[in-house]
């Protein structure tokens, strides 16, 4: 059996369509069977509410007198992209204020507009014959704008990998605060209610389909940026009129130490036209699996510690390396439900007629990494391979001599097998000599918790370590903890002028 979209829209018009949320669907399919569910249910509504950084809006301010061709545009001191015609701009959610930093950004401006607040527009121009004005400042509310059209390049991720942190310090990431030593796990996404998890083959989701976006009736433009449905990470590009949006479903936020983002509610109504829709909407939290990724490793392909389901994550605890670890959701399931329920009401009351895709979205595509054409400097390219060292059993006086001879401020300390045991600095040695006490040997004064670098590491990562741990040198160690070199701020200076290439 199949049902046409016309039949479903007719039932909606006549007020006898059966609309359920994606959370209700698995039980209905279990009870009535697939054929039974197809006959019974006409529309399944989905919903998600979470941080969606790739959000923004095209704004048209109208022409001033004398007219201006804006080249730089600021809204409450947040820069918008002004490289489109004279009085248009695109304001991205993650752009930070030039005066208030991380606490206020593009997302906050968008929310202020939706909340009906006044926003200061400041624009600069070099002036032309047709647009002579060079500067402009005015206060605007959303009503004053000709258009405020939200166009979000990447929303409604199908699912998202969970995050944890194996390092010994707290990480502040876009996945929230990650405590040291796998102290917590954070995740995002609505699981059972996620729009794309309910149609992973893009059977009824595609261009032209009507959706709920931040409280406004909107539309799917097509695949989102970074769309990677081949591995279960599809995304959508979506649009709606900001003038119809509600603050209930659009909230600016700041991930501490990371930056500004926007929490958005997105819901897609799925017409139950055939068994394929029935099967895909019967998905449960237990069926949707994600990896728990170690954000302690600062590379693109971060290692996964294990795989879990949304059902596991929602229980509040998952096992990581033999211990139960608390989980935190960064998206709001209560709000996701609110989106799916509001959308259900929209469909039932005829506010949102259903549509099939006018253009299909590729369901097999895979995201590719960046092709980098310039060689990236690695630690091994600039490290100093001549590393003065002492053994941990040597006398402190010996270390002092070596520091003088080596014309250096750091000595790596090696154990009997020649592996890194610690590090000492001129300060450690001076202190030991100025205040003679029980310390006689190098091992008595060395720092054993050494921050190290890997030879293959990108220099930016090593530079960040120097800064974060407030150290002046990093011993570079190989697989077996043998010392291959030393990296100091002086070595980083070699990068200027491209000297590392030689």
């Amino acid at each position, binding site marked *: 059996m199949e049902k046409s979209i016309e039949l479903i829209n007719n039932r909606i018009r006549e007020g006898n369509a059966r609309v359920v949320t994606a959370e209700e669907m698995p039980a209905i399919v279990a009870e009535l069977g697939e054929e039974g569910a197809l006959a019974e249910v006409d529309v399944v509504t989905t919903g998600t*509410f*979470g*941080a969606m950084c790739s959000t923004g809006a095209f704004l048209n301010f109208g022409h001033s007198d004398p007219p201006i061709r804006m080249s730089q545009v600021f809204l409450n001191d947040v820069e918008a992209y002004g490289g489109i015609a004279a009085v248009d701009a695109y304001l991205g959610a993650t752009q930070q204020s030039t005066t208030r930093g991380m*606490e206020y950004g593009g997302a906050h401006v968008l929310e202020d507009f939706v909340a009906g607040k006044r926003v200061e527009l400041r624009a600069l121009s070099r002036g032309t014959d047709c647009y002579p004005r060079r500067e402009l400042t005015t206060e605007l509310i959303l009503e004053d704008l000709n258009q405020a059209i939200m166009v979000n390049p990447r929303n409604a991720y199908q699912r998202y990998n969970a995050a944890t942190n194996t390092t010994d310090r707290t990480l502040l990431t876009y996945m*929230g*605060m990650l*405590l040291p030593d796998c*102290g*917590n*796990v*954070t995740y995002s996404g609505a699981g059972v209610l996620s729009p794309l998890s309910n149609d992973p083959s893009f059977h009824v989701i595609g261009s032209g389909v009507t959706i709920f976006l931040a409280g406004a009736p909107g539309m799917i433009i097509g695949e989102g940026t970074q769309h990677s449905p081949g591995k279960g990470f599809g995304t959508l590009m979506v649009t709606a009129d900001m003038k119809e949006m509600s603050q209930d479903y659009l*909230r600016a*936020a*700041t*991930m*501490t130490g990371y930056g500004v*983002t926007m*929490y958005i509610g997105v819901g897609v109504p799925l017409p139950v036209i055939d068994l394929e829709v029935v099967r895909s909407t019967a998905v449960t939290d237990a069926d949707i699996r994600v990896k728990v990724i170690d954000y302690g490793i600062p590379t693109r392909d971060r290692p996964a510690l294990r795989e879990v389901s949304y059902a596991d994550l929602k229980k*509040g605890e998952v096992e990581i390396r033999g211990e139960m*670890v*608390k*989980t*935190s*959701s*960064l*998206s*709001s*399931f*209560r*709000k996701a*439900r609110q989106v799916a329920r509001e959308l259900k009401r929209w469909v039932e009351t005829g506010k949102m007629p259903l549509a099939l895709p006018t253009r299909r979205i590729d369901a097999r595509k895979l995201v590719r990494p960046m092709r980098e054409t310039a060689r990236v400097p690695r630690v091994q390219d600039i490290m100093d391979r001549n590393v003065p060292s002492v053994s941990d059993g040597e006398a402190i006086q010996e270390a002092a001599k070596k520091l003088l001879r080596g014309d250096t401020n750091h000595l790596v300390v090696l154990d009997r097998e020649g592996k890194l045991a610690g590090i000492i600095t001129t300060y450690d040695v001076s202190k030991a000599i100025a205040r003679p006490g029980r310390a006689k040997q190098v091992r008595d004064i060395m720092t054993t918790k050494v921050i190290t670098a890997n030879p293959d590491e990108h220099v930016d990562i090593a530079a960040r370590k120097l800064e974060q741990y407030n150290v002046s040198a990093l011993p570079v160690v190989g697989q077996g903890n043998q010392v291959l070199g030393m990296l100091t701020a002086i070595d980083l200076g070699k990068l200027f002028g491209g000297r590392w290439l030689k």
Partner: protein
Amino acid sequence: MKLLVTFSRRKGYEPIIAKAVKETGVLIRVDRAHIDSSGGEVLIDVPEESCRIVSEKMGSLGAVVKVLEHPVVRDENECVDCGACVSVCPREVFAFDGEWRLVMAVEKCVLCGKCIEACPHDALSQQVPG
């Protein structure tokens, strides 16, 4: 009940907490303490019925004692019930109810401040004792 006890070292090195325990017989749990050469700020937990006697005793020893009724406060207009606070809290103050609404057990709070830092919506704040 949470009490925030502050004292300065100008009044000498009185063992304020030890004396209060000894003289009142009330078992005081220290949740958090920051003490340096000039003074200290200590968060203690005492049974509600002993709150007054402990406060008075510590007050007589030169400490300033303030009752913290709501150590951490949530702005319901800003909170979206995301749960970013749930796993960063060392004392399980935050949890979800059956409807996925965030519920708080503020009496467990030790004012570490992690949730305030982790909240993406700026919805949590520490009560400033008056």
